[in-house]
């Protein structure tokens, strides 16, 4: 296609050196960086709580509760909320929509997050969803369980027998999970009354489905969701969302469900805030250092950002350009204050930096990234250079500069 026809539509993130990271690549990278942040947060949880069942139950409970928040108002408010959803997604009554809103909800969320796959079955009694990919597959088994608690809430919001009651009308099982090593994620919801199934507790959702499942052969699996394949997501009822809509949605909501919700429980696992923050910084600093241990990782980054050879390895601009690419791909507005051999300063608005979803700002983003980027800087550039974040009125200044710290992590 001629550039003339597409120059206005093929957008991307411009690196500090003028290279354009194409929109689809930036979107994928955004997803993976959010998943990586989530993986680090889950490591913090594992340090704080060594009991798998206990910590998994805790994050399941909180994820379920937060996803049920939509039905905490009056019955009328719930109906208004649901009707707006039906309208937005063109969901007709003929699908018995109230019964299966969880499946419809889940499908567009999966697709926006490049959890690529398909609804295998959608009947009055059973829904089966199969995924071939998941950017969050690095987080681990607790996350896979936590998502089942979210799905349960989504089903209960509209399908529950009584308003405001968690009735678990469906048995919901994640029969397979990529985060646990399976080739697919597979979630099956089956009506308990139809199949005579037991009510489930938080940790009972990784069982097998009552009816046989369909396993898509490898030659017909997909690597990416519809947005990256075809430029938009289209649901079963013909309603479409553009790749741009999905990108903006996930750059907000990805932080909410995979970080903000579990963090409510994880923070409570620490004796106090100081202990939580101490462990968080250690985990993120280690993750950062390990990012560029391999020499080819440094070379790969230079190539990705198109860093010219005139800029040597021991130059703060290498790290500054890396941070800028992360911010750009995560759709965080920023401004360079300095970008030269003496250091880099990047100004970001505090509210937009921590409040990816405006209603749920995360101070942990600042704490985590400061530790992670500082660690990464020591292996990507050299230990002579550090990253730290200063406050300046309503802004943060992300600094890459020389810093001697006799108690450096």
């Amino acid at each position, binding site marked *: 296609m001629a550039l003339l026809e597409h120059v206005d539509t093929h957008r991307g993130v411009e690196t500090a050196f003028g290279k354009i990271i194409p929109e689809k690549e930036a979107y994928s990278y955004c997803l993976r960086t959010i998943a990586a942040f989530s993986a680090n947060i889950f490591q913090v949880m594992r340090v704080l709580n060594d009991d798998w069942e206990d910590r998994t139950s805790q994050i399941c409970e909180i994820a379920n509760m937060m996803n049920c928040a939509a039905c905490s108002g009056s019955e009328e408010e719930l109906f208004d909320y649901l*009707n707006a959803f*039906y*309208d937005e997604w*063109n*969901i*007709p*009554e*003929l*699908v*018995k929509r109230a019964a299966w809103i969880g499946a419809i909800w889940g499908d567009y969320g999966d697709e926006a997050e490049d959890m690529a796959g*398909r*609804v*295998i*079955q*959608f*009947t*009055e*009694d059973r829904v089966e969803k*199969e995924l071939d990919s998941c950017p969050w597959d690095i987080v681990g088994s607790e996350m896979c369980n936590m998502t089942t608690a979210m799905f349960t809430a989504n089903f209960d919001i509209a399908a529950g027998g009584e308003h405001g009651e968690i009735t678990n009308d469906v048995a919901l099982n994640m029969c397979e999970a990529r985060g646990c090593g399976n080739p697919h994620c597979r979630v099956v919801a089956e009506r308990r009354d139809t199949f005579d199934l037991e009510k489930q507790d938080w940790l009972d959702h990784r069982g097998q489905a009552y009816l046989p499942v*369909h396993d*898509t052969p490898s*030659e*017909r*699996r*997909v*690597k*990416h969701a*519809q947005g990256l*394949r*075809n430029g*938009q997501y*289209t*649901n*079963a*009822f*013909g*309603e*479409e969302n553009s790749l741009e809509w999905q990108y903006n949605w996930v750059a907000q909501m990805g932080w909410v469900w995979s970080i903000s919700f579990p963090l409510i429980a994880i923070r409570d696992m620490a004796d106090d805030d100081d202990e939580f923050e101490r462990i968080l910084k250690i985990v993120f600093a280690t993750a950062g250092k390990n990012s560029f241990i391999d020499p080819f990782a440094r070379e790969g980054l230079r190539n990705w950002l198109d860093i010219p050879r005139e800029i040597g390895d021991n130059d703060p601009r290498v790290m500054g350009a890396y941070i800028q690419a992360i911010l750009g791909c995560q759709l965080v507005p920023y401004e360079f204050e300095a970008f030269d051999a003496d250091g880099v300063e990047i100004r970001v608005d505090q509210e937009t930096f921590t409040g990816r979803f405006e209603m749920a700002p995360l101070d942990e983003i600042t704490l985590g990234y400061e530790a992670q980027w500082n660690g990464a800087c020591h292996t990507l550039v050299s230990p002579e250079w550090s990253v730290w974040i200063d406050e300046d009125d309503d802004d943060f200044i992300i600094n890459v500069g020389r810093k001697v710290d006799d108690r450096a992590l």
Partner: protein
Amino acid sequence: MLFKEDEIARAEATAVRENAAWYRWTHDLVKVTGEDAEKFLDWILVNSIAGLSVGRGKYTTMLDENGGIIDDLVVFHKAEGLWWLSTLYGPHAVKWFDAHSQGFNVAYEDITQEIDMYAIQGPNSAKVMDGLIADSVDDLKRFQIIDTTIGGIAAIVDRGGFTGELGYEIYCAREDSAAVAEAIEAAAAKYEAPRLKTLEVYVRSLPMEKGMALRQDYKGLTPYEANLGWSVRMDKDFLGKEALEAAQAEEPKRAFVGIEIERESYEDIAQNEIIRKRGVPVGICRQMIYGYTVDKNIGFGIVDARKVPLGTRVTIGPNDSPAVIVEPKWC
């Protein structure tokens, strides 16, 4: 998603083709009333609505200002001054009317939540109906709608449906729904007509085999591109007419076609998957499904009318599934 090995879905489809079957719900309903109701509908819909007799219905499309299809529906003239529109999604129709009803003395309301609906479809559906409702359906013409009773319960019946077979749609008050379902089940049991539960069988597989699409399949196409030119009445004024006249003067740019996938199944093909001819994008898929009557993976697509004549071999989706372009009707 339907697969050829799914014996439950196959049995449901076969029941409709060879006997009869029933299921809850077929579409949304919008009630239109008011002094200008007929005039308004005649203007906002492409088919001729003015003069439609009471008790009769008509298929039509609804266009935007660019002549592109935004909905396809059946209009029933229910009583003097009272019209029912059957549409896949009532709220969207209401919003469209809100934006275009200025100057008309007309009222409209989405009554979907007030009324429950059942469909009885298949060659033996008339026999089931005769054992079910107080009136005979023998003389009922296509899209004819009547008031009747089921075991003393008020009901409304039209001859129609979305399977391409002889069939009927039953409307009743929501509070009567359970009793009506019980009566249908009893009448259907005499002919071993099952209740269908697989949505994709009666919303997608059965209709698609007969060339019947949903409104999203046609989205943005002109009625001519969608092979629905027969429903356009250019001898009257309607919303989108000017654009449609201009489109009519040109060769169609797009064609609404059928697709047959030459693989066992279609798990990697979503709606709007890209269709390629020798590796070059030439269109998009609208929907794939398995057709149990024709025993094929079939679908609808929209392609470049100049580049993709019937019989063209193409590939679809991320794994380049081989396919051939055919007429969008299989039986």
